[in-house]
């Protein structure tokens, strides 16, 4: 991929805004420097509607066919569960890589999201993990099994939830446990 073909952080954000218009809720560029030479690097943060999430990933892949998926993080915010999918574009050339984080909010009344394993097969473990830790459903996931949590862990308990389905009941504070 030539320098000309690689988009700048501003162009990446603009291309996503142009493509999805109203479904982008927020987009910001985090610019930092490092070392004595103050070399710049960029992390992009884009908050979007789940209806366009998969298309947005497809769009990133069209910008860089070797798009790298790092991991999906996630947390419980009372009414919603938010997922942060972290990607990076343009690796392989020094100081050209740009991190792109896509944040998607899922309503607890419908905690579902489309799988991206058909675009990036390496996202499977991350999707399985989000299902078991946050109690979301990844639609069309090719392997719908637990990955980190043991099979005998109670059903309906999700370790990263902060509501009644969270792990509270299972927590033992060791110094309070009577032997």
């Amino acid at each position, binding site marked *: 991929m030539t320098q000309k073909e690689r988009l700048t952080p501003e162009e990446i954000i603009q291309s996503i805004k142009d493509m999805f218009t109203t479904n982008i809720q927020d987009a910001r560029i*985090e610019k*930092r420097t*490092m*070392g*004595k*030479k103050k*070399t710049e*690097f960029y*992390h992009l*943060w884009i908050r979007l509607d789940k209806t366009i999430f998969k298309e947005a990933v497809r769009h990133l892949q069209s910008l860089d066919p*070797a798009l*790298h*998926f*790092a*991991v999906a*993080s*996630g*947390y419980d915010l009372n009414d919603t569960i938010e997922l*942060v999918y*972290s990607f*990076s574009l*343009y*690796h*392989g*050339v*020094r*100081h*050209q*890589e*740009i*991190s792109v*984080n896509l944040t998607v909010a899922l309503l607890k009344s419908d905690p579902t999201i489309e799988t991206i394993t058909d675009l*990036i*097969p*390496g*996202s*499977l*473990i*991350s999707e399985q993990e989000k299902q078991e830790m946050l109690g979301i459903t990844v639609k069309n996931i090719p392997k719908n099994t*637990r*990955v*980190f*949590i*043991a099979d005998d862990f109670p059903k309906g308990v999700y*370790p*990263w939830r902060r509501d009644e389905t969270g*792990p509270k009941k299972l927590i033992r504070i060791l110094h309070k446990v009577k032997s």
Partner: protein
Amino acid sequence: MKTAEKTTYQLPIGPIHPALKEPVMFEFEVDGERIVNVNVRLGHVHRGVEWTGTQRNPIQILYLAERICGICSYCHPMAFSLAVERTAGIEVPERADYLRVIHGELERICSHILWAGVAAHEIGFDSVLFLTWQMREKALDLTEYLTGNRITKGITMIGGVRRDITPDMHPKIQETLQYYKEIFKKLQHVFLDDKTFQLRCKDCGVLSKEDAIKLCAVGPTARASGVKKDVRLDQGYFAYSDLDFDYITPDIYTGEVHGDVYDRIVVRLLEIQQSIGLIEQCLNQMPAGPIVSEPKPLKLLAKLKNVSGEGIGRLEAPRGEVFHYVKLSAQDAPYAWKVRAPTYNNILPWIPMLTNQQIADIPIVAASTDPCMSCTNRVTIVKNQDTSFLDKEELHRMSIQKTRRLQL
């Protein structure tokens, strides 16, 4: 005439695996000695570290993160630090950035040499295991000299590092680097020129470049398949952007990329040499100045308690990219913390690597990604309803037998 029906057998390996340092479960489908399909299951040592982190303050988390992995005990707290620094807008002093590179590269030397010993052991060269681990001692001694500890270094602080490297410490560092320069040729000869090593490792456990990209492989596993992916270069962090170095792929040494176990050895060995050079550059170019932005931990915690926001920390650990996500919400503890170790991404690439290999190759192929899980030793063979066991020694013996058969 009735034709015999071709059957395959299920061969579960684990959850305690002979080739690994920690538990993982493989479910192999084998046709005789040949592996037809593989399924991998994880989580046998899931300790809920991320949840625990949401009950601790950021400085306490540094010490928790240090205990995620004994070999990457520097990378995890540092990646967490990077994420917090970016969330809170903390500027790290330039000198600290150089000190951070030195500790990171020293950890890489320790890790790659440790791995080389494990790889030798897996194919039956225990004399090489002892040789490499003896060589590693020098790096551990230096780690102890610089940080006060051999393994859990306790050197990380948000906004810098906890200890300086003063000019009087340089001779000891240079002496150790000189030692590694001298033994490098020997390591190269033992691992790359030996005929048996070549026969066991070449064209074994191949991961194509396409699969490496598709399955999101990281670190030496990806680079050995020709994927130029190294966070130190791709994006940079600490002082890496000031230093002169390049991507290590196997074609630098062999002229071509095969993506096999041998190529993974090549990449790691050359990276030891690269790390020596990076430490030297840091010693020569390190600017004077403070080593931490806020030397008072309580003041730092008070500041972090008022921060809301999110950030990521990406760092090239010896095994590949370590990734930490942190969300702060103006409280004592982070609202969310996600840790992604390199092995998380290097699990799925095991499937194409192991498919069509022989059972005796499982230990070296599995070890070739330098996986990070802990280890004991049990293999169960289930054939119809009958179950028999292969213990660590038996599987290891099969691997050695294969090496013996190859010896000329």
